């Protein structure tokens, strides 16, 4: 009996339990529906949950226990080895040998006996585990069928389980968020042990390369993050200049002027833009937009126009965030009650006067919120800027120059083999932390603005 077969057996019993209990409850229902507390499918669901839950819990507990027991026992075979790394190396050698993943007998006197022990005991354990679990499942299966009576409150119990499940899911999500923030925070603090906070936040020279040998050029590394952040801001601003007007105008057109037919085709097409993988935007930037702007630069004789410029990355990034602005702004414009639009038109206002004087002011919060959300998307975007912006940390406001962004630097710092004790690697965490903090604040502001706007009409 393998573990897959065991799991299939449990699932089969669960399904069978669902149908049996449901059928029994239906039969009860047929006699006198007024006396039966819960609908048949609630009985079925509760029986299924009761059948599967103990089996799953036991399976996890058992596997966890057997693992730690095997580990201690296997380690005792190699007790003469002093180095703990070497011991765990042998232990995993035994495990992979038994699993058939490798066929090397390691060079240790106890290796074959350890293999023998592990092979027999895992087999034993699996057999025992399967028998115990199947028996317990059969017991709960039988018991759950007995529970199906007219008075049994299966509906309330299922409701309770559903609510608990959802509650734990949200708690889990919150803890994951906390975990990510804390892990970032600790690494960031470690970075600030070697580099001063003020140097990082206000220094204007970014060159995180540190020498491996003594006496190499640029041995110290320089961690002034200002050029990185100004680069991010420059690219994001260019993106907003592209996406803001296009998104806003298309939203106004779609919500106020377009016929229902046009709207039903155009809106999904605009939203497709949001579904394009950002790597594809990266290609687009490098292959199409880059050469186009370079040729334009040559045509107008602009000096210092590189094919990796803030303008190229920013404009493609702008195209990427158009759907965020267009879609959210369209939603908030459409949420303005029709009665206001009619009221204004009945005063003799044209549609565009109505839009600028009544509808946009009435949905202003929503529009601002959508812009801020799009802006925080632009700041955090990685792939497009990695492909189109480059790594040179220039402190410049000239959109024709190459700049770098926070996300690009993080990718650069963490790609390849890295030692996790050098300031160079740790600086990525500091950058990420500041980036996270910025987008968090932007999101909080924009969400609260959007919320206020919703309250206005509810």
């Amino acid at each position: 009996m393998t573990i897959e077969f065991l799991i299939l057996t449990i699932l089969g019993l669960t399904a069978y339990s669902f149908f049996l209990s449901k059928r029994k409850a239906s039969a009860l229902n047929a006699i006198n529906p007024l006396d039966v507390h819960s609908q048949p499918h609630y009985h079925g669901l509760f029986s299924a949950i009761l059948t599967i839950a103990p089996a799953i819990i036991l399976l996890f507990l058992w596997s966890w226990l057997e693992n730690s027991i095997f580990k201690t026992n296997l380690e005792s075979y190699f007790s003469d080895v002093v180095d703990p790394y070497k011991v765990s190396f042998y232990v995993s050698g035994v495990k992979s040998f038994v699993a058939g993943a490798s066929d090397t007998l390691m060079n240790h006197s106890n290796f074959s006996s350890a293999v023998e022990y592990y092979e027999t005991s895992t087999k034993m354990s699996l057999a025992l585990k399967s028998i115990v679990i199947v028996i317990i499942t059969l017991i709960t299966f039988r018991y759950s069928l007995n529970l199906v009576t007219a008075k049994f409150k299966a509906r309330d119990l299922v409701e309770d389980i559903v609510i608990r499940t959802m509650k734990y899911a949200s708690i889990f999500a919150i803890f994951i968020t906390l975990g990510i923030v804390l892990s970032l925070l600790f690494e960031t603090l470690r970075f600030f042990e070697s580099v001063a906070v003020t140097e990082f936040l206000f220094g204007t020279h970014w060159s995180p390369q540190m020498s491996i040998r003594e006496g190499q050029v640029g041995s110290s590394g320089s961690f002034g993050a200002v050029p990185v952040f100004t680069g991010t801001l420059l690219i994001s601003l260019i993106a907003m200049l592209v996406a803001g007007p296009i998104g806003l105008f298309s939203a106004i057109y779609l919500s106020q002027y377009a016929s229902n037919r046009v709207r039903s085709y155009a809106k999904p097409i605009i939203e497709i833009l949001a579904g394009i993988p950002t790597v594809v935007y990266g290609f687009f930037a490098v292959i199409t937009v880059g050469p186009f702007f370079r040729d334009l630069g040559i045509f107008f004789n602009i000096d210092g126009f590189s094919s990796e410029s803030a303008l190229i990355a920013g404009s493609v990034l702008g195209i990427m965030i158009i759907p965020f602005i267009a879609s959210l702004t369209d939603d908030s414009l459409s949420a303005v009650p029709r009665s206001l639009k009619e009221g204004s038109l009945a005063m003799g206002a044209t549609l565009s006067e109505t839009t600028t004087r009544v509808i946009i002011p009435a949905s202003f919060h929503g529009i601002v919120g959508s812009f801020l959300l799009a802006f925080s998307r632009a700041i955090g975007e990685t792939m497009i800027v990695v492909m189109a912006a480059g790594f040179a940390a220039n402190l410049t406001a000239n959109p024709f120059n190459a700049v770098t962004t926070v996300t690009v630097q993080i990718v650069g710092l963490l790609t390849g083999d890295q030692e996790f004790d050098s300031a160079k690697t740790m600086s990525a965490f500091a950058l990420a932390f500041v980036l996270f903090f910025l987008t968090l604040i932007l999101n909080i502001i924009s969400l609260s603005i959007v919320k206020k706007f919703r309250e206005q009409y509810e």
Partner: protein
Amino acid sequence: MSESLKIAVKNLDVFYGKKQALFDVNLNIFANEVTSLIGPSGCGKSTLIKCFNRMNDLVEICKYNGQVLIDGENINDASTDPVSLRTRVGMVFQKPNPFPKSVYENIAYGPKLHGMYKNKDDLDEIVVSSLQKAGLFNEVKDRLFEPGTGLSGGQQQRLCIARALAVNPEIILMDEPCSALDPIATAKIEELIEELKEKYTIVIVTHSMQQAARVSNRTAYMHMGELVETGLTKNIFSNPEHAKTQDYITGRIG
């Protein structure tokens, strides 16, 4: 009462897509009178009132033929500019719909839109006199710069009437103006209608027969998209010609 014809509806058919909403409607509306349109739900009274300021243009699938003459000029003509038409024909809606702006800005909306004032003092005067005409000034004079949406339902509706008055229209259309209001607010609006008819021609759609009887000089009864009967209110209510009208006003249908 001088009987000068203000609006004349001639052979008007209105279609929403394939569904015909009005069938060959003929109706005369006289200046400085209140004309009420009554009838069961879905009979086309709101559709008819929206033909007087071409608000049906907003509904893509709406088509009409026939004539609506205001002062002898056919407003269904392609040459009629809906914008100038709607400054002559103001409208008050079922649900009060003040703009999310201050009381002052709500009233000033129309005059600003059409450049109807010379300077700030002029605009102030328009705002004050419109509020006075709508009987709202004393209640809101300390709250002119607070949001219009913060007023009570009845005050909001009078604000909407004041907003319509600010551009000095000739005709005021009211589409069930009291259906969202309590009896006291309704009584105030009815008093106001009584005063306003001195200067304006008023067409009101209402579900309340008592209201039609109280406020209007003439009543038109509609049924299933047809105009069944029209005449002086006192005649319609005391001695209707048609059996359908009789049934409706005595509460047997509707």
